[in-house]
C-alpha cells in the first residue's frame, strides 16, 4: 500500500513501491486521462506534474512519488474553469486522435509556468512529446495563443 496525493486528493494505492506511477494512476487511482505510449519515457504520452515539474510517469515509481503533489490532466481545470492551455487547445482545434494530447498539454502547462511567453526556440527545446498524427503546427499556434491569453 502507498499513499499518493493526486490532484489534491489522497489515494491509498494497493500497488508495490516499484510499480510505475503511470500504472498506479491509471489502474489503481482509475484516472485514465494519463496515457501509456512506450513505457520507456520516450514519447511523453504519460506526462504528469510532480510538484509542478513535467514528468514522464512511466519512468517514476510509486515509491518515488510518495509525498509529492501529483497533478494529472484531470486535475488541470480549476473551479469549473478549463486551464488556459486546454481552452487554447479547443480554440485552435489542436487534437487529431488526441491520444498524446494529455501528455502534450501537461508538458505545455509546465513550460508556461516557467516561461509565460515562450519563443519558438523555447518550445522546440521543452516540448519533446511524440505525436504520430502530427499536430505540431497547431500545438505551436495554441501555445502562443495560450501565452497571450
Amino acid at each position: 500500500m502507498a499513499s499518493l496525493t493526486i490532484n489534491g486528493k489522497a489515494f491509498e494505492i494497493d500497488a508495490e513501491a516499484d510499480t510505475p506511477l503511470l500504472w498506479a494512476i491509471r489502474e489503481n487511482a482509475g484516472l485514465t486521462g494519463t496515457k501509456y505510449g512506450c513505457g520507456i519515457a520516450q514519447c511523453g504520452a504519460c506526462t504528469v506534474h510532480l510538484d509542478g515539474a513535467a514528468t514522464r510517469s512511466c519512468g517514476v515509481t510509486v515509491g518515488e512519488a510518495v509525498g509529492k503533489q501529483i497533478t494529472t490532466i484531470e486535475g488541470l481545470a480549476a473551479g469549473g474553469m478549463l486551464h488556459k492551455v486546454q481552452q487554447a487547445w479547443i480554440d485552435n482545434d489542436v487534437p487529431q486522435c488526441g491520444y498524446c494530447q494529455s501528455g502534450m498539454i501537461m508538458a505545455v502547462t509546465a513550460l508556461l509556468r516557467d516561461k509565460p511567453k515562450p519563443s519558438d526556440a523555447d518550445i522546440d527545446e521543452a516540448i519533446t512529446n511524440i505525436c504520430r498524427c502530427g499536430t505540431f503546427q497547431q500545438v505551436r499556434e495554441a501555445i502562443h495563443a495560450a501565452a497571450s491569453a
Partner: protein
Amino acid sequence: MTHMPVLSRRSFVIGSAAVGSGLALGLDLPFGGPGVVRAADGSPEVNAWVVIRPDDTVVIRIARSEMGQGTLTGLAQLVAEELECDWSKVTTEYPTPGQSVARKRAWGDFSTGGSRGIRTSQDYVRKGGATARMMLVQAAANEWNVPVGECSAASSVITHKPSGRTTTYGKVVEAAAKLSPPADVKLKEPKDWRIVGKGVKRLDTADKTTGKMIYGVDVTLPGMLNAAIKDCPVFGGRLKSFDDSKVVAMKGVKKVVKVGDSAVAVVADTWWHAKVALDALPIVWDEGDNAKVSSASIAKWLEEGLDPAQPAFIGNQNGDAKAAVAGAARKVEAVYSYPYQNHATMEPMNATALYTADKCEVWTGTQNGEAAFAAVLEASGLPADKCDVHKLMLGGGFGRRGMTDYVRQAVTIARQMPGTPIKLIWSREEDMQHGRYHPITQCKLTGAFDADNNLTALQVRLSGQSILFSVRPDALVNGMDPAAFQGLAPQGEAAIGYSLPNLLVEHSMRNPHVPPGFWRGVNVNHNAIYLECFMDELALSAGQDPLDFRRKLMGKHPKHLAVLNAVAEKIGWTTPPPKGVFRGIAQHMGYGSYVAGATEISVTDGNKIKVHRIVAATDPGYAVNPAQIERQIAGSFVYGLSALFYGGLTVKDGRIEENNFDTYNSMRISEMPKVESIIMPSGGFWGGVGEPTICVAAPAVLNAYFAATGKRIRSVPLRNHDISFA
C-alpha cells in the same frame, strides 16, 4: 539465399472468413419507413442516419471510425448540410456493427481505410440528411394543413412562408418518423453548400483536452481483469510450451492461457501485474524455418526480382519500352528501395472482451467495425445475433486498426474465462514486433533518351511484397496485385501523371514472411519516391530544370499539372532560394486526389538537414472541411518524414529488431516546419484526404537534398546514410 521465406497462411483465413461469417448480406440502406424506430433514449429516428430529440438536438449516426482524421465531423457536416439543421445542436453516435447487421447493413460499409471514409459514403449520407429534411417539412405541412411546397427549412426551423408560421424539428419529429420516405430526393448543388466546405471545428475535441475521452485502452468494466500477451516473435512460428508454475503465485496473477497456436497471455488483476508476470514466464517457441530470414536475405531475394528474366506482372504498358531502351542514344538507370515501417499508433493495440455461454461483446478501437465483428463471431463461435462490437475512439489508426488480430486474441482469452471481462493491452514492444508492416520493395528504373535529348521510354520494375496477396487475396486479379501500381497506373484513382511514348511498369511479386498491411499512403509511399526522384535524375541527365522537365510530359494530365504548378508558384521556384537553401519538388496521385509538394532545406556538414519550408497542394475534388484537410496534409508530412528520417525496420532471425521509440523514432516539434497548404478542389469528383499527400513528403526532401549536396539517396531511412535532422 538458402532459405525461401514461407508465408503464413493464417492471414488468408482471416481475410476470407470475414466475408463468410455473417456479413455476406445484401445492402439495404433505409431512408425511413412506416414503423418508428427509437434510439436508446426513446427519441425517434427519422431514418437510420438522423435522430432528433424533443429539445431539437440532432443525433447523426456515423458508421465510419474516427481516428483523428476528422471523418466523424466531415460526415456529420454532409448529413447536416442536407438536413438543414442547426449545426450547433449536432451530436454524433456510432451504431454498432451488430445493430447494422440486424438491420440488413442499414449503415452500409463501416470500413475506414483507403481514404474512403467520406468519399465513398458522401452520396448516401447526404441522401439520408435530405430525406429526413423532406419528412420533417412534410410533417409540419400536414400539421398546418398547407401544401408542402409553401414550407421550407433552415437551421432546424420550418417556416410556412405565406402565413409566417414556424415550428422546429424537435416538435414535428414524432409525426415525421411515421411518414414514408419520399421516392425522389434531390441533393443540393455544391454552390449552395453552407456547412460543407467550411472549416468548422471538430465535434470531438473537448474531451481530448481534459482526459475524459475513452479510448479502447481506457475501458473499465465491473469485475474486469487485464491481460498481457506475447506472440511468437518469429512470424509464422508457434508456441511450444510455457511454465506457468513460475508465475501463478505472483501478485495479482489469475491465469496463464494459450492464445491460438502462437501466443501466450497472463491474466491478472492489473495490466502491470500481468506484464511483470509475463516477463517472468519461461516460454519456449517453435520458431520454424522463418527464423533463418534476415534483412539481407530478403534484400537478395527482392534484388533477383529486378532481373527482367524473372516473371513479373505488367501494370501499365504502352508502346515498346524494351525496344526503345535497346535503341536509345542514352540510357539512365537506377535502383531504389523502401523498407518495412511500423504504424506505431500512439495507443498500442488493445481490445476488451466479455464472453458468456450465449453472448460475446467486444469494446475496441477499430477502423473496420464489421471486420472486427466478423472476427468476434469466428473467435467466439457464436452467431451474429449473439455478438457485438462497441467502437471507441482510436488512439491512431493509420491502417493498422483495420486488422483484427488483437480482437481475435482478446476473444480467445475471454473464452477461456467465461463471464469475466478481459482487457488485453499490447506492450509497445509487442506492438512494434507484431505489426502489419508497410511492405518492402525495390525498384529498378530505366529511362531512354533519343539523340535529340527527348525522353522516349521509361521502364519501372518493382520487386517485392504485395499487401493484397496476404490481406485480401480475393482482390488479386489473376494473381496480380493491382494496388502495387498505385500512382503508376494507366488511369483511375491512382494514375501516373506523365505521358510517355513507350512505358512499361512491372511487378515481380515476392512475399517475405513478415506480414504486410495498409500503412498510411500504402503503395504510393515507395512508388512516389521511385518515380519522382528518378524524374529528377532524368531531368539532370537531360540538363533540364526538374519542374520544366516534368511539365513537358504532363500536357495530357491537367489536374496533376495544376497541383504541381501551384506548389512551384508558392515556393517561388523560378526565383532563386535564399543563400544556402535548396529546393525539391514532387507530384503524384492516389486515392482519387492529385497532390504535389515542394520543400526548402539547408544541409550542414553534408548530413544535417534543416527543413525550412514545406508547401503542399491537393485537389481532392471537393473539400468538405478545409481546416481538417490542412491538418491532414501537415500531419501526413510528419508521418512521412518520420519514416524517411527515422523509420525503417530490420529483420534478424526472422523477427523485427526494433521494439520501441528509442530504436524506431518519430519526429518532434523542433524538426517540423509549418506546412503551407494549398487546397484547390476542382469539383466533379470525390478524392481522399487522409493519405494522398504523404507520398510527396519524402521525394520533395530527397530531391532538395540532391540539389544541396549532389548526392542522390536511393534508399530509406536516411539514418542508414548517417543523415539526420540538424
